[in-house]
């Protein structure tokens, strides 16, 4: 049973059909990668799934729930977390506070107990910190815990964003170009982490990625898109050798 089921998804911006009748399924134990040249509509598909864009037609089903018309903040509550291509962090907050926001959907305390910092909230906050510190450890961010984001280098920010998404304890993680801007060493560490997220944490991953070595290394399933349409899908090797994919990337 698929964790994410996208059926005939389309969106039109004015005269431009940015995503055209795209369908695919992500399984709960999969790393599913979308590849394609610039402007193929990969990020648009992401923004449709996380409900930032309104689809023109089609259906998105997540964990058996139709989320096609749900507002974006409810998507996180259902167990889907995402990162952004151009890193969207809370610049003037510390790494720990950024990661703690990942626990927002698990917050239960009412206004009064937050105003007075009652023991019930204290218990919650302690539990939130245990999860957050676990994620911070997993992402090797211990030494930056108390540093505000605006002073951090790019590679670290990428990790903070991933940590924030993991702190939500999602069932599905959407990663928009997780390796862009990373050094080769950092990219290798990322590949290791992605597999650990799938195998140890049991979280499915849907990602957009350009680094084809990373794609072959970690992907269970690859979907190639161009100009909003699906070119082909299957195993990483098969997709990368497919004549349509080769043509889309390097021309005739």
């Amino acid at each position, binding site marked *: 049973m698929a964790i994410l089921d996208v059926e005939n998804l389309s969106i039109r911006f004015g005269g431009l059909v940015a995503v055209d009748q795209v369908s695919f399924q992500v399984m709960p134990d999969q790393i599913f990668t979308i590849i394609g040249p610039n402007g193929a509509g990969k990020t648009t598909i992401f923004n449709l799934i*996380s409900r*930032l864009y309104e689809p023109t037609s089609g259906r998105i089903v997540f964990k058996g729930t139709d989320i096609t018309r749900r*507002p*974006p*903040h*409810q*998507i*996180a*509550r259902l167990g889907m*977390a*995402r990162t*952004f291509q151009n890193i*969207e*962090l*809370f*610049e*003037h*907050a510390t790494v720990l*506070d950024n990661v*703690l*926001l*990942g*626990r*927002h*959907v698990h*917050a239960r*305390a009412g*206004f009064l107990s*937050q*105003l*007075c*910092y009652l023991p019930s*909230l*204290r218990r919650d*906050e*302690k539990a939130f*910190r*245990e999860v957050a*510190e676990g994620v911070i450890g997993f992402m090797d961010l211990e030494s930056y815990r108390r540093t505000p984001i*605006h*002073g951090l280098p790019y590679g670290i920010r990428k990790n903070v964003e991933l940590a*924030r998404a993991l702190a*939500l304890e999602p069932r599905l993680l959407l990663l928009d170009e997780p390796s862009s801007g990373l050094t080769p060493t950092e990219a290798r560490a990322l590949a290791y982490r992605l597999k650990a997220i799938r195998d140890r944490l049991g979280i499915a991953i849907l990602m957009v990625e350009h680094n084809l070595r990373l794609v072959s290394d970690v992907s269970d399933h690859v979907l190639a898109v161009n100009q909003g349409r699906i070119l082909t899908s299957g195993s990483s090797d098969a997709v990368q050798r497919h004549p349509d994919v080769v043509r889309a990337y390097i021309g005739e």
Partner: protein
Amino acid sequence: MASNDLRIDHGQDLVLVPGRAAALRWLLIGALFVALPWLIDEYFLSQFTFICIYAIAGLGMMVLLGYTGLVSFGQAAFLAIGAYTAGALETAGVPFVVALPAAGLVAAGAGVMIGLPALRMTGLFLAIATLSFAFIVEEVITRWTSVTRGSLGLIMPDATLFGWAIDSERKFYLLCLGILVLCLLGVANLLRSPIGRAFIAIRDSRIAAQSMGVNLAIYQTLSFAIGAALTGFAGALLAHKLTFITPEQFGINVSIEMLTLVVVGGLGSLHGVVFGAAFIILLPQVIAGLRGLLPDAIANQTGIETAAFGIILILFIIVEPGGIYGRWQSLRRYWSEFPFCKAGSFKRQRSFLKSERW
């Protein structure tokens, strides 16, 4: 200092005052302010009462602009609503202990009213909407003479606290100080809770906040409600401090003072609220003092104070966006590393207010 950095339990992250040294420092500062009425004369004490009141009002603005990134040019309206709610209720015989929370609640209601339509607006549009709201409130207060007595003004009775009359400057200062401390504690608690983190998330990236499950509608409205309630409390206290209120006292210049307060104090810091309030109250005193030194042609110009506020606001935005508190922190860092500091490490990071919020 080093011992505080060693953490062996997450509970250590949850205390408001980390370590004994900090607790002692706060105790001393607190004792100083409680002893203040017996240390200075009544005129200066009165200025400190104003600082407390402005700090409470500024706290509301800080929650809105400093922590949630929502600009409001209508704080004077919430101040007026608080002042007139308390005024009307107390004139009708309602005791102060009921009128004060009522002032906060009615202002919060007005905050929700302006917060809900403001959900579709940010930046400049929100500024204009809140500004218009302030004009509407001022006009309503002027016309609604049966309750507010319009431009004739409303005379405030002395506040009573459970039968105990607050009839001297000394008692009233202590009352304002107490309420300020309670408000500061409440806001500090909220800010280190899920609500505060959601506010900061909205301020720094609305799109990421949304994707992490923050309901923008609820939290922006909540921010407006809290910001308005605090300003409403301040309004009730201000009415008592002034003893006589008229609609003109809550004009656009008060809203601009609030904006100046948080920017000059330091956006995104609670210390900044108190520093900013002290700045707003003491600057006119300094200008009055300087009047004698200026040539007559300048000294007798009207609007010198407004101009000074404007110029200082602009200078802070350009030169020190961290405000007084930001400057204070970099000074402290400088001294803590004194012989080993190099100028470069204290240069300000170029982070202006994000243009998209304006």
